[in-house]
């Protein structure tokens, strides 16, 4: 090959490679920077941490589909999941007595689903939230909404997939650059005063500062207000979550950033909103109290049979996702027939035979749920304990906490399961 041809080919290849990079950058939103810890004395401006993750938005969209984010969330860029797979809508119908089932069954289900009737919408999430926060949240979900029982489940997403999902969400609602929205010179004390006057504490908690007072609300007790309270995040996390440039606008006119939000317009002026934003984002916070997972209780002295375990634990909580496919139109729930990106585990926790039949691992091999892990804990109990640890901010990378995305079981319930297994799983 003539040298000049080789040179041209090399140049062409380089050009193609570079143009590929450019094309990719169109779907990307930057690289995450190491977050700075704000000190109590000199709060670091959160803007310095606004960075974005490198990801492929198109792949992200496919992942959002695969992981079925639309089963709980609106605003995913996909159509809502089919009714029978939509956790929130299906539960809401059951709650309102509209679900096509016998009244007795519907009434019985109400107790089980009452707490899972609302999930935050992802509409405009890219405009409001910092990409690096979304990324860290998906990797290590934590509870930001104290009044909402369910929380983001720990999905089986790897780091690259997380970045792709973030890129998709950011592409759905790109951030608008507002360089003039610095909080420099804002009056934090005035911000606190306004926060109290506006009654923000009626919905939001703000851990780490003096408690916010509540204000009598004429809508208190309404369905709308109940939802608003459940969806209101603890303002402690706002400095990690919100894009600085939109913080004041979010306080003034939230619907301009998220059309379906339940947060009302505050009626504050721009300067007042800046003061409130500065207080929320920059006021020093008392360190969060370290949480310890509850102590594992020793096995009970009395005999525990399957019926008791079923009535108090498995049938009440686990059976919803790990159900019997033969009884639920072929869908035994995501924990049996697959869902939320998980492969079908073929785990049915609704009957004695089902529990004893174990589950499939990632290679499709069947294992007992009573298999002992390295520390001697049965797999089933380990999953329940792992959820308690997740809530205490100590996730176990080897064991996914159960129930997925729901509050952990009380230690007494885990003790019951533990005792039953230790006694040889009597029927």
């Amino acid at each position: 090959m003539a040298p000049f041809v080789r040179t041209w080919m090399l140049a062409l290849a380089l050009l193609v490679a570079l143009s590929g990079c450019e094309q990719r950058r169109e779907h990307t939103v930057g690289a995450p920077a190491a977050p700075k810890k704000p000190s109590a004395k000199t709060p670091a401006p959160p803007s310095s941490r606004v960075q974005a993750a490198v990801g492929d938005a198109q792949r992200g969209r496919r992942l959002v589909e695969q992981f079925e984010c639309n089963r709980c969330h609106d605003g995913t860029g996909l159509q809502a999941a089919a009714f029978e797979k939509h956790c929130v809508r299906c539960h809401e119908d059951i709650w309102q007595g509209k679900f096509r089932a016998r009244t007795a069954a519907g009434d019985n289900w109400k107790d089980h689903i009452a707490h899972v009737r609302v999930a935050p919408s992802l509409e405009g999430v890219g405009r409001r939230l910092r990409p690096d926060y979304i990324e860290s949240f998906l990797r290590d979900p934590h509870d930001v909404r104290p009044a909402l029982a369910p929380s983001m489940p720990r999905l089986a997403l790897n780091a690259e997939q997380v970045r792709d999902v973030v890129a998709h969400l950011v592409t759905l609602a790109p951030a608008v650059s507002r360089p003039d929205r610095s909080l420099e010179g804002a009056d934090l004390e005035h911000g606190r005063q306004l926060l109290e006057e506006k009654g923000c504490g009626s919905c939001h908690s703000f851990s780490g500062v003096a408690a916010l007072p509540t204000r009598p609300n004429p809508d208190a007790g309404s369905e709308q207000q109940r939802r608003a309270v459940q969806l209101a995040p603890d303002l402690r996390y706002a400095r990690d979550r919100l894009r600085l440039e939109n913080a004041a606008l979010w306080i003034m006119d939230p619907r301009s950033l998220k059309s379906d939000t339940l947060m009302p317009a505050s009626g504050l002026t721009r300067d007042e909103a800046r003061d409130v934003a500065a207080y929320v984002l920059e006021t020093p916070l008392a360190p969060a109290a370290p949480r310890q997972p509850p102590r594992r209780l020793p096995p009970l002295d009395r005999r525990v049979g399957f019926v008791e375990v079923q009535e108090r634990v498995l049938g009440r909580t686990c059976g919803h996702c790990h159900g019997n496919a033969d009884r639920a139109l072929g869908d035994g729930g995501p924990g049996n027939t697959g869902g939320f990106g998980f492969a079908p585990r073929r785990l049915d926790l609704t009957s004695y035979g089902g529990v004893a039949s174990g589950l499939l691992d990632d290679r499709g091999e069947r294992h007992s749920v009573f298999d002992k892990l390295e520390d001697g804990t049965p797999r089933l109990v380990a999953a329940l304990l792992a959820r308690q640890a997740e809530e205490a901010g100590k996730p176990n990378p080897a064991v996914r906490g159960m129930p997925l995305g729901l509050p952990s079981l009380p230690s007494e319930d885990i003790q019951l399961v533990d005792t039953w297994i230790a006694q040889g799983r009597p029927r």
Partner: protein
Amino acid sequence: MTIRRTLARTIALAAALGSVGIVADAHACGDAWVPEIQIDYRIDGIARAEKTYGKGRHVAAAASVIRMMPHAKNLEPKKSTLVERAVRMLAVATARENGALPVAREVPRYAQGSWLGKTPEDRAKNLAWAIETLRKIDGIKKDDPAVKTDLAEALAKVDAHRAEARSLLEALSKKDLVATPEGYAVLAELRSSGGDAAGGKLALTRCEAMAKEAAVCHGRRS
């Protein structure tokens, strides 16, 4: 051509008659013809039988299945159907009672057929049906330890299949997937009769831990 036309007309007529048959359960209400929805009480009935079965009363569950589906022996189990659930209970109960279901008082005479297993031939036929049925369900369910445990229990009742029964149960036991105390009781018996007394004792201990009543592990009960 004429034959084809005649055939087409016959099929069309049959289809029309068939559709009339489907809506035959209807009644007139005012000037409207309202189709009547037929409620299949077997759906609730089978669910109740399963509860009875779950409490260890397999003969009562079997009797209830025969009453609801007197022709159960001729039914083909298919995936996720009521029939599959019904005939599975019936097959396991038949195996546990060695092919002779003591249901004379609970099942009307016209539906008793060979279920009572009055002759050795009837008992053998019943056991063969139980094994065949559980094999079919095992084929449908694929890799379901609970069905495999039931199948092994039935296989152990026929000399020619005892080796297969033991092999199935040993494989499940190795992974702690024997799904019922009855399965461990059968494994205990197979091990002991095969000369493995220690293994038999171990399986018996597992059975006793799992069973509600120790009688399940030591002999007949219903």
